[in-house]
């Protein structure tokens, strides 16, 4: 299964990781790959850590990989990148949004948000840091940080052979389409 690639998308409930996974899955299918996508629902909706895996290639059997199995990490939050580091292959490409979302214990002061998360990842992997919130704001869609990060990720990961604008048009509801097309 050497030609099967695994993209791990991680973030915090409510950041729109599942929407991006949907866009990604749809685009890869259009490009002719066999694709499987797996997400974890349930309690994770309530502000917990969320993860999705998208796997593509000639023939994909398993919808998931375990530790040391992912080729690409798209992290929508800095601390989440660190949490999932051990799921990556040593030569994995990593894209991190320069966004920190405190957990409740951090917000109440019971715990500290860890310092140096991005630097720690940079020591281990080829990391691209994206100020997705800023890009989204500059391009006039402050709620589109998820798609802004995705736009950078497809460049870094060599997934720009897909016409993502067309994919977005097919996947997104009309009322949020234009605002998101501007981000690609």
């Amino acid at each position, binding site marked *: 299964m050497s030609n099967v690639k695994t993209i791990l998308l991680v973030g915090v409930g409510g950041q729109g990781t599942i929407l991006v996974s949907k866009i990604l899955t749809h685009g890869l299918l259009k490009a002719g790959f066999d694709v*499987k996508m797996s997400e974890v629902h*349930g309690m994770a909706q309530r502000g917990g850590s969320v993860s999705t895996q998208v796997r593509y290639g000639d023939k994909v059997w*398993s*919808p998931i990989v375990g530790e040391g*199995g992912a080729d690409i990490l798209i992290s929508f939050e800095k601390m989440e990148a660190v949490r999932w580091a*051990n799921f990556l292959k040593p030569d994995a490409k990593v894209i991190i949004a320069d966004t920190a979302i405190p957990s409740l214990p951090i917000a*109440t002061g019971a715990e500290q948000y860890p310092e140096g998360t991005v630097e720690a990842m940079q020591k281990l992997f080829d990391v691209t840091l994206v100020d997705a919130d800023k890009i989204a704001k500059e391009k006039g869609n402050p709620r589109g940080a998820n798609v802004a990060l995705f736009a950078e990720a497809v460049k870094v990961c060599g997934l720009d052979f897909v016409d993502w604008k067309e994919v977005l048009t097919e996947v997104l509801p009309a009322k949020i389409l234009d605002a998101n097309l501007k981000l690609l």
Partner: protein
Amino acid sequence: MKKLMTGNEAIARGAYEAGVRFGAAYPGTPSTEIFENLPEYKEIYSQWSPNEKVAYETAYGAAIAGLRSISAMKHVGVNVAADPMFTSAYLGVNAGMVLVTADDPDLHSSQNEQDNRLYAKGAKLCLIEPSDSQECKDFLKEAYDISEKFDIPVLYRVTTRICHSKSTVELGERVEIADKPYERSPKFSATPARAKVHHMRLENRLKDLEEYANTSALNKMEIKGDVGVITASAAYNYAKEIFPEDTSFLKLGLTNPLPKKLIKEFAAKMSKIYVIEELEPFMEEQIRALGIEVIGKDVIPVTYELNPEILRNCLFGEKSPTKTAEVQATGRPPVLCAGCPHRGFFYTLSKRGSIVLASDIGCYTLGGGDTCICMGAGFSAGAGMAKALELKGDTRKVYGVVGDSTFFHSGMTGALEIIYNNANIIPCVLDNGITAMTGHQDNPGTGYALSGSFAPKAKIEDILTAFGYENVIIVDPNDLDAMKKACDEAETCGKRSAIITRRPCLLLKREAHTKAKFNINSEKCKKCKMCLKVGCPAISTVNGQPVIDRAQCAGCSLCAQVCPFDAIEQEG
């Protein structure tokens, strides 16, 4: 036509294509989306029932009356439905009946990771296990044919990974099944004398079914080399991923009764056999009992979900290299949403000193408590604790908690237990007007049915009053003074009391919610951090100064109510 579908969407589609006419279920992760997708198919009448036992019985009744029917629930829901399920195997069906059990290896969203394949053996049901979305749809059609041909309900077992993974599905056409006539007969009566006959008949049907399993297309033999893998369900995909191309596979889809002849035939051709399955050694123990030596649970864990990397490690000793970051991530526990109406209740109880709080399964589990066991136990385990503490001379006050959907599910009997046996516990129903943790399903108290149509609205207070509660206190949990008074009154009034906190879930779109926003006036704020004690995800500290995230603030005003310096002000 091909379509990308989750396993749950594919099961709903499979029900449509299989000519199913009737469905009844109770929501529970990871099964919920099966029935959320059913109303899309107008040919199927579908409903939420008050609990899994009622759902199973209703669906089974429909199958007796002559319509192909489906029920679905999470694995622990099958515990609730187990009573009718066991006897339904004896009696068999008229039209086909399938119960989908959605197991949760890894406890993504459950209180245990029980393996419901064991139910199939215990209850003597046919067991069918798809491994991906395509099979979720296709095997279901086969399940109904088997159910009718062998006169047996089918337990259709999927797991979280199958339910919530998407892959492409080739869609088919609906097969219209002629309604089966219904006439009264001894067939559906399990009186002892008749059930004795039914049991013998069931054993014979299981023998026929096993014979069929040996040749069923659901069980596929793929002979290549002399190393063989016997597997089923999600584990099949993991095994396919890690074994070399020349490995032989016996991939089973019909797993109770196991096709013993087929397994022996496969084993005879192999020099080495692996049995790969998640959780319990369900197939392995039966295969070993045939005298076949296998590699299985001696090396594969019985806990948690499997994946290709775990299998590679435990079967071949190949550990994928990993790197761990030198900075550690701290935990990110799920929390009550900003503005959640449950927060006021839990904040109030946190101020009542040393109490015992028997909690339950739902959003309010996130509020903490002494116990979390199963649906309904908040009242009845709480009643037992209250009794025992009283017998021991322990004077701590005991509170029991359930939500509105849980009250109708199995909290009602606990509420009755408290009255009947005079347990010294204050039962509290946190009524947010919806089944929330599973994502907003209607229940008998909401006034709506699964189809979206209006339904009679059961009143929790009327039910409690009918049970014998003399003082049912209904309180807005966002009003902390009223909340405190309600607890004081329930503890001291000397009457049998119950508390209903009533305010709709903030995420419920059909209700109007406040548009208010609150700010912290930094000039008045003394940084005492009382506001942080309400545990709201919209409040955090920046350089020691508490701040409210305007985007998240839902205007519940709890923080403003607890601020001793009136420093939290409403905008505008």
